[in-house]
């Protein structure tokens, strides 16, 4: 086997173009004759549009056309891709989500009108000349206020602001109540999972193109899943069949979930390109991204954990308010339910669990999946309440966790999922060694001498990744399948092209996927090229999110490559006049078992396309195969994280002095890329824990609408991480045995940071049991003043 197959830390080939400024991002694409759109967005969170007069603006220089809701009559709304059924068996309340506001605005940032002009500046100038009069209505921002009787309604046509009241598992409700009533000890924790703005480095961009000669539409867009956009926009919004609509997502500069969703701007550009007869381009500014990209998290939760005298978990009950924002973004309803409630067992045996989630409409930007999506919210509350319980009961937090670990697999949780494999003691053992937990007291003493408080936070996490078995998610309300696809095309001279439905926007697919194929054939990975991001030249795929690319997309590549190898063996058998059953493939050579006969990979591929000596009566020429892979189960990456902090007692400033992550991702294809994925996730998790917070005032104005007030983590805010993924319990149901690694860091790290800060404060004698994220200096200082 040449170097560079599965297990090799190949350098990322895509980085050559990214690091030398040669990437081809959507904003780099300019179509001959393109016009530009500027969206007039509401600066009022809730109001009636009393007057919208575009007549003066239409006369401004360079204006081609101005669109309002009236132009979208007969056009569908932006669809929601997941329907949740509430605890009474009723479907969620699902409001219409128009492309441009119809009569009413419901959040600051909602699009009211769109100016298409020759230049971006002319479009913006004209947008300012539109006469707009909005009668302001009281805004609902706080979720608990929003669901009270008599609260102003975000959507007048709905019964209330409650999207759904979900109970899981509803049948367990009474048994859980009873177990908690009779328990030896119950630990209760109320907390907020802070609202976040994803802030990928590349803002969103869309270019709509219409070819009048062919009637074909093309949309260039910054999407994590171009096929999903083609399906949603084509079928539900604009009524364009897939064969007349091409969606291309070229290089995309990060997504973190926020580029999964179908946005109104995409539909607008596609629609307007036909209407004005010119390509229409939109490039989002950073300020606009703050008020138009779907935001993340925003849960308000009460969790109760019941334990027996020995600290065994008896029952968990949670009540969560989950913010939907003003409209349902593509996957918003699934995040606080099926991506959250199903993970509430964590790494532990808890016989009874009941999760209640109230999803609430508010006059804020829509909220949807953000790196981890529901699973960080589950891990955070569970790992925080366990830490609190350990302290209340005087049991070491690590020991309490170990006492409740699931140790036998497969394990069916009381929240509907079955973990196939795992070894939570192994990752915990590894973590304690990496973090030198035994030496903590000594480091604590050193910190004290320097006037600093020191704390150690340890926690576990589990996530359900490799999303997802289509028939299962269909039962749960998904309006799409969640398989993945791959076409492997072998060229005559032996090189391969892998056309994948997965999409890379930072994950390194162009490097990792070839390692898989090359490993199977025994050739150098440089012989394999990856094509992705264009519905015109990749099979129907569901894209990249939920740590699914290798587990699902990689599995499809394996299946397609297996088909290739099976056919190539037939050809090789013909060439060597041997029985197909005796053909072996190793190091790019086909051999006949027990003989010295061999033909090279390239000889076989050439024969497939120059079939002079070929079994044409039995076998088609050519060597190209497609596979669709639908997983049998989720994958369950898990691990243990340790965070060590120093807190300045005079200012409340937290410094993370060490962070260790012991992850079980199953098998690993490229360890270096996995390290990088964990580093990135930890950076975002630490960002959530210490810095990031999207804050609205009572009128629905985003107070943190720029980087002047929204604190992004910087290199100096994070330590040099220690990460390890040597504990490997391979996934039992996908061919690579991989579990996925993209979200782990963001899921596992916030509770570690908060556990560590609470530990530091308690060791210093403060009666502090919880601080809500972000743990800014002022919040930590205020907590120290109170206790």
């Amino acid at each position, binding site marked *: 086997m040449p170097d560079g197959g599965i297990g090799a830390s190949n350098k990322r080939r895509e980085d050559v173009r990214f690091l030398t400024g040669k990437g081809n991002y959507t904003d780099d694409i300019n179509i001959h004759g393109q016009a530009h759109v500027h969206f007039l967005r509401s600066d009022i969170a809730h109001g009636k549009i009393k007057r919208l007069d575009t007549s003066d603006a239409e006369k401004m220089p360079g204006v081609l056309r101005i669109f309002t809701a009236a132009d979208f009559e007969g056009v569908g709304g932006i669809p929601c891709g997941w329907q949740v059924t509430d605890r009474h068996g009723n479907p969620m309340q699902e409001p219409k989500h128009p492309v441009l506001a119809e009569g009413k605005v419901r959040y600051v940032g909602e699009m009211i009108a769109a100016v298409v002009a020759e230049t971006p*500046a002319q479009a*913006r100038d004209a947008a*300012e000349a539109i006469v707009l009069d909005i009668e302001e209505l009281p805004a609902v921002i706080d979720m608990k206020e929003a669901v009270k009787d008599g609260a102003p309604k975000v959507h007048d046509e709905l019964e209330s602001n409650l999207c759904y009241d979900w109970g899981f598992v509803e049948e367990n409700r009474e048994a859980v109540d009873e177990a908690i009533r009779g328990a030896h000890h119950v630990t209760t924790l109320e907390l907020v999972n802070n609202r976040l703005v994803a802030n990928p480095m590349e803002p969103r961009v869309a270019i709509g193109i219409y070819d009048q000669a062919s009637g074909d539409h093309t949309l260039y867009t910054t999407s994590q899943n171009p096929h999903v956009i083609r399906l949603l926009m084509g079928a539900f919004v604009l009524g364009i069949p897939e064969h007349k609509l091409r969606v291309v997502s070229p290089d995309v500069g990060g997504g973190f979930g926020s580029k999964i969703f179908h946005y109104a701007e995409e539909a607008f550009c596609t629609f307007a390109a036909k209407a004005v007869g010119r390509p229409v381009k939109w490039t989002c500014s950073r*300020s606009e991204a703050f008020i138009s990209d779907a935001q993340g998290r925003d849960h308000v939760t009460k969790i109760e954990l019941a334990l027996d005298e020995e600290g065994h978990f008896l029952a968990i009950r949670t009540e969560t308010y989950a913010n939907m924002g003003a409209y349902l973004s593509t996957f918003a309803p699934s995040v606080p339910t099926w991506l959250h409630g199903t993970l509430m067992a964590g790494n532990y045996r808890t016989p009874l669990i009941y999760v209640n989630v109230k999803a609430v409409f508010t006059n804020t930007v829509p909220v949807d999946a953000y790196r981890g999506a529901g699973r960080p919210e589950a891990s955070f509350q569970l790992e925080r309440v366990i830490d609190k319980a350990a302290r209340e009961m005087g049991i070491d937090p690590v020991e309490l966790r170990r006492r409740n670990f699931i140790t036998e697999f497969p394990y069916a949780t009381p929240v509907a999922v079955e973990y196939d494999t795992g070894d939570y003691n192994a990752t915990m053992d590894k973590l304690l060694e990496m973090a030198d937990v035994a030496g903590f007291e000594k480091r604590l003493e050193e910190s004290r001498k320097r006037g600093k408080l020191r704390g150690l936070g340890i926690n576990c996490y589990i996530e359900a990744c490799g999303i997802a078995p289509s028939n299962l998610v269909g039962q749960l309300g998904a309006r799409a399948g969640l398989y993945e696809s791959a076409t492997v095309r072998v060229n005559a001279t032996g090189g391969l092209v892998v056309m994948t439905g997965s999409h890379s926007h930072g994950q390194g697919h162009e490097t990792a996927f070839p390692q898989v194929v090359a490993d199977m054939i025994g050739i150098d990975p440089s012989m394999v090229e990856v094509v992705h991001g264009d519905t015109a030249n990749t099979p129907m795929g569901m894209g990249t999110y939920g740590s699914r690319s290798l587990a699902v997309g990689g599995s499809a590549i394996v299946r397609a490559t297996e088909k290739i190898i099976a056919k190539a063996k037939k050809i090789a058998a013909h060439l060597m006049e041997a029985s197909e059953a005796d053909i072996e493939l190793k190091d790019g050579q086909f051999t006949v078992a027990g003989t010295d006969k061999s033909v090279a990979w390239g000889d076989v591929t050439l024969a497939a396309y120059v079939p002079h000596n070929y079994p044409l009566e039995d076998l088609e020429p050519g060597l190209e195969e497609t596979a669709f892979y639908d997983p049998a189960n989720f994958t369950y990456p898990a691990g243990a994280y340790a965070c060590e902090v120093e807190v300045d007692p*005079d*200012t409340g*400033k937290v410094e993370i002095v060490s962070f260790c992550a012991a992850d079980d991702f199953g098998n690993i294809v490229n360890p270096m890329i996995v390290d990088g994925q964990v580093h990135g996730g930890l950076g975002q998790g630490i960002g959530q824990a*210490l*810095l990031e*917070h999207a*804050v609205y005032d009572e009128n629905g104005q985003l*107070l*943190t609408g720029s*980087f*002047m*007030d*929204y*604190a*992004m983590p910087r290199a100096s805010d994070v330590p040099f991480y220690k990460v390890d993924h040597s504990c490997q319990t391979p996934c039992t149901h996908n061919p690579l045995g991989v579990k996925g690694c993209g979200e782990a860091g963001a899921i596992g790290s916030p509770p570690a940071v908060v556990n560590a800060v609470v530990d530091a404060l308690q060791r210093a004698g403060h009666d502090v049991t919880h601080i809500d994220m972000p743990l*800014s*200096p*002022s919040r930590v*200082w*205020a907590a120290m003043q109170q206790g």
Partner: protein
Amino acid sequence: MYNFEIERPGTIEEAVAALAAEEAQALGGGQTLIPTLKARLAAPAKLVSLAGIAEMKGVRSEDGAVVIGGGATHAEVAREAAETYPALAALAGGIGDPAVRNRGTIGGSLANNDPSACYPAAVLASGATITTNTRQIAADDFFQGMFTTALNDGEIITSVSFPVPQAANYQKFEQPASRFALVGVFVAKFADGVRVAVTGASEDGVFRWSEAEAALSADFSADAISGLSVSPEGMIGDLHGTPEYRAHLVKVLTGRAVSAA
């Protein structure tokens, strides 16, 4: 950004003449003004760039003072005042990031008088003198509240003269997002007494903490202020800190500045 005219005068005299035009606005390093223009929050008809005026550049020593041209960038000050006035150089080197420090100027910062900017603390604590095209203004008279100064329309800061103290230090506690000063305290010890200037904290902008000055003039040690307290009244309260927190930080940072001076 709206369209505007731009002039690039080569002398102070030319700049003053250019600024006499209607709706003309001086442009220093543009670190506040350019983002404001890009957000369309300001629409001057004409910008007068001060970047090409040779007589407003540079850092020099003069009669025991460090004199900084109004057009000197933060990076230049960080580099060129490092030996003559290290506390000032350290402050300049801690403003923003390298891109900001290589464009932003002391004149621009002082004329803007952002309540969270660093330079006003150094100017006020050092008892510096601000020289304009028409006059000299003492630091104590220059700062007149948030974004307000003694400058008249069209008046240009040509240089700032800093008496060099016997000991000095600036302590900046960063606002987590912007990295401006949530609170910044500059302490300067002169032969005739100690001056303490605080930025970031007050709704009135930079101010002198006179109780601390008196205590430190008698005994220049962190212990000297241990009995003092700062009232939260009039302090800024926002997402990043309550008035109480800012008042608390004023004392903490003053003590640290004294210890480090």
